[in-house]
């Protein structure tokens, strides 16, 4: 047990496993399904074939970007519940610009991704600005902006940005040049996964090796000391939130450019919220988050198979995700979170 006392990351991992398998098994027993059969179907659906494993990686990628954004904000002492809204607006910007104003050749994909990151970044910067300028609580602000983002996207897609060729709730299809290239045939796995890997490693380097990363961590770990050392807390909050939004927005853009090839209001089944669990289980460290994203990606992709093969409603996946978040809410990293 000593190792758990010393290493919080390991202890949290143990808690997570207990919640997932304990509560998951209980829920399956309520549905009169043996947990062995239920989890068997889940693992088989997530790893059984090459294509199924590819889908697990797709889901992991979709969770990775918003989780990295949430982690960055947490490290700066801010809670960004707004990843969902940032991701949706990033996807909308990517889908609309990519379909309407495609750049030629190799510029098309970068433009789509940059558009998504910018839109998400702006949406993240709003609560950052409100916080820096007016001291507005970023938690409530991001929570409110989530709903506003969803409504804004629904309005824009249904009205001003409505497409002749697209459906009611979606933009037109992206031209081939604006789509992320596939990594594996017969799957939805694209270069988005590799971009995610690069961003995770890059972010770790930024956090550990750059002045900005140091200031960000200082603002989160000891805001008063950071302020006395001359770090501008308001500016740090603004930049951290903009960066967090940009990461989630980039995630939305990769879903559009890689998975759906258009923006759709049903783009996210709550990636921005599941990503909170991913960030917490990942100990707010980009590399651990990679592994956590893989684990939750497995639950997402395997959950579908579990429902089909073992007749376990796949809501059990959301249930254990929510409980994992509750169980890990006591992390010490969060205890220093600035409140107002």
């Amino acid at each position, binding site marked *: 047990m000593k190792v758990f006392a010393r290493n919080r990351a390991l202890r949290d991992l143990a808690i997570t496993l207990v919640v997932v398998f304990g509560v998951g098994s209980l829920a399956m027993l309520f549905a009169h399904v043996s947990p062995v059969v239920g989890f068997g179907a889940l693992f088989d659906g997530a790893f059984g074939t090459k294509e199924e494993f590819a889908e697990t990686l797709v889901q992991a990628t979709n969770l990775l970007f918003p989780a990295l954004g949430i982690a960055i904000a947490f490290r700066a002492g801010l809670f960004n519940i707004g990843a969902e809204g940032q991701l949706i607006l990033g996807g909308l910007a990517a889908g609309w610009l990519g379909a309407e104003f495609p750049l030629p050749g190799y510029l098309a994909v970068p433009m789509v991704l940059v558009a998504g990151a910018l839109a998400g970044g702006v949406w993240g910067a709003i609560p950052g600005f409100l916080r820096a300028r007016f001291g507005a609580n970023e938690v409530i602000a991001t929570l409110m902006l989530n709903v506003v983002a969803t409504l804004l996207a629904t309005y824009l897609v249904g009205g001003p940005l409505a497409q002749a060729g697209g459906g009611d709730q979606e933009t037109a299809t992206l031209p081939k040049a604006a789509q992320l290239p596939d990594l594996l045939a017969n799957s939805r796995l694209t270069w988005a996964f590799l971009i995610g890997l690069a961003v995770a490693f890059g972010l770790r380097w930024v956090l550990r090796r750059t002045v900005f990363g140091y200031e960000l961590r200082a603002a989160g770990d000891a805001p008063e000391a950071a302020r006395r050392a001359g770090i501008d807390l308001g500016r740090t909050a603004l930049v951290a939130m903009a960066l967090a939004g940009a990461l989630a927005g980039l995630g939305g853009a990769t879903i559009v450019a890689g998975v759906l090839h258009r923006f759709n209001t049903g783009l996210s089944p709550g990636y921005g919220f599941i990503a909170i669990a991913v960030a917490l289980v990942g100990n707010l460290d980009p590399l651990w988050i990679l592994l956590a994203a893989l684990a939750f990606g497995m639950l997402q992709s395997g959950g579908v198979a579990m429902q089909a093969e073992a007749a376990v409603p796949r809501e059990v996946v959301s249930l254990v995700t929510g*409980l994992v978040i509750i169980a890990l809410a006591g992390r010490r990293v969060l*205890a220093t979170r600035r409140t107002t």
Partner: protein
Amino acid sequence: MNALLATLGAVLGLTLVKATPLIYAALGGVLSERSGVVNIGLEGILIAGAFVSVVVSGATGSPVLGACAGVLAGALVAAVLAYAATRLAVDQIVAGTGINIAALAAAAYGLVLIYNQPGASHEVPALGQGGETALIVLAFVAAAVLHVVLSRTPWGLRVRACGEDPGAAESAGIDALRTRFWAVVIGGAIAGLGGVFLSLAELDLYSDGMTAGRGFIALAAVIFGRWTPFGATGAALFFGFFAALQYSLQRAGVPSELMQALPYLAALVALAGFAGRVRAPAADGVPFVRP
């Protein structure tokens, strides 16, 4: 003229119906936050109240028993948050977010287990027109009672003390953790009644997503109402009025999304301090740990 009056009457009636669940949830939020615990989990509490009341009403045939069970369910879900926020001193926002996700999923799972169908329950015995009216009136009574309790009773003073400075409250002999725990649990019971109203008074069944973010609108009402029972009730009525107007205004060419976004935009404006001085309880959201 008579037609206009009739329209006005219909809009005002609809306003009350739309505002009532918001009032209950917002009052629960006010009590919780005045004790120093931010209750992001209001949405989950509404879901629990709405779902459990339908299940119990269906099983027993008594909507009144169902309503009682819904209140109890709200209190129980709130107790999870309260225990985590007081004894375990966890991050309240993170825990509340988890509660919302878990409650939505648990209700969806329960639908499949109990009714053997995803999406919605069967129709169950509901409270009817009389029950609906009673619950609407009770919402305003609850606001008045909460106002008196918070501002005129020793327990209310203790709750507010814990929300402003739990350390000072403890040195005055108040058990801050216990006070916060019960404030959150009672707040959950009140908010649970909002869920009961949605499923057993406005309708006679539970369906996935029927709370539709009302817990978050209630949170906005708490802020816009400056953390007071009457303020939050007023804000809930204001938001309810626009929800009631939505259909008429949509016909007049105002996008319904704009109307739906209004509560959230209003809360942002209030948060940024554009709507006069707004101050949360000083220790709102700060876990208290005994030295």
